[in-house]
């Protein structure tokens, strides 16, 4: 069975993946593997997963997102989810999946801002330690 590959773009230190089609399970697993590999090869520190076009997030996809965030975290990269539709947010919470450990932002633009801000803070902290 062919799984759909989600393109993962690199902009500066940030990886951006915009999911445009309904993911079936095999594609979701493929996406997780591709994304972690890409974090490794590009040494990216931040990942934005944009779900603007997604109208259903069930428990399988929800768990996949939580897993990706945890695994990326182990590799030193932060994951921010952007563009969650109101209906998706409502359904996720009613389903019992609140994704407490995943960063979120209203849209891709805000997600990029959040990542750049965190990057700056991290750099300032690093240079701060250097002067000690």
């Amino acid at each position: 069975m062919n799984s759909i590959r989600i393109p993962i773009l690199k902009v500066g230190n940030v990886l951006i993946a915009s999911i445009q089609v309904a993911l079936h399970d095999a594609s979701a697993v493929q996406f997780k593997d591709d994304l972690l590999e890409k974090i490794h090869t590009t040494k990216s520190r931040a990942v934005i997963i944009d779900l603007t076009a997604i109208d259903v997030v069930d428990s399988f996809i929800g768990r996949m997102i939580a897993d990706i965030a945890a695994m990326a975290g182990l590799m030193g990269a932060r994951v921010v989810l952007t563009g969650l539709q109101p209906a998706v947010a409502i359904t996720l919470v009613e389903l019992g999946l609140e994704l407490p450990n995943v960063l979120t932002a209203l849209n891709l633009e805000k997600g990029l801002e959040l990542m750049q801000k965190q990057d700056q803070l991290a750099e300032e902290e690093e240079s701060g330690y250097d002067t000690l």
Partner: protein
Amino acid sequence: MTPSKAAVIRSDLDIVIARTLARDTAKSIGFGAIDQARIATAVSELARNIFLYAGTGSVTVREIEKHGRRGIEIVCEDQGPGIADVNLAMQDGYTTSRGMGMGLPGAKRLMDEFTINTEVGIGTVIVCRKWRN
């Protein structure tokens, strides 16, 4: 009685087909965007259960009406192993597979009516309904 539409569940691709069928039917009945998402998500959970536990089965969707209210009825049927302890399976976080244990209780919360008929070794039939406000 309105005609029903069915999706056969044989692979993970069919889960997407079943929930799209449910969403399209819900939309044609006049459900709003949020209820469409609830219904599609519930069907996704139930269809995945069929795929994970029984391997094959079917999801049938149809429009219903009671006292002038329109609604949607979803019947999920399989000839799989059945559920030994329904009360346990309906608990949040209980799972015997790689899932999160949210399929059944989650789907129940998203729908208005939810009934399970199951017999070990025979199979499982889940009927759930949602009514338009």
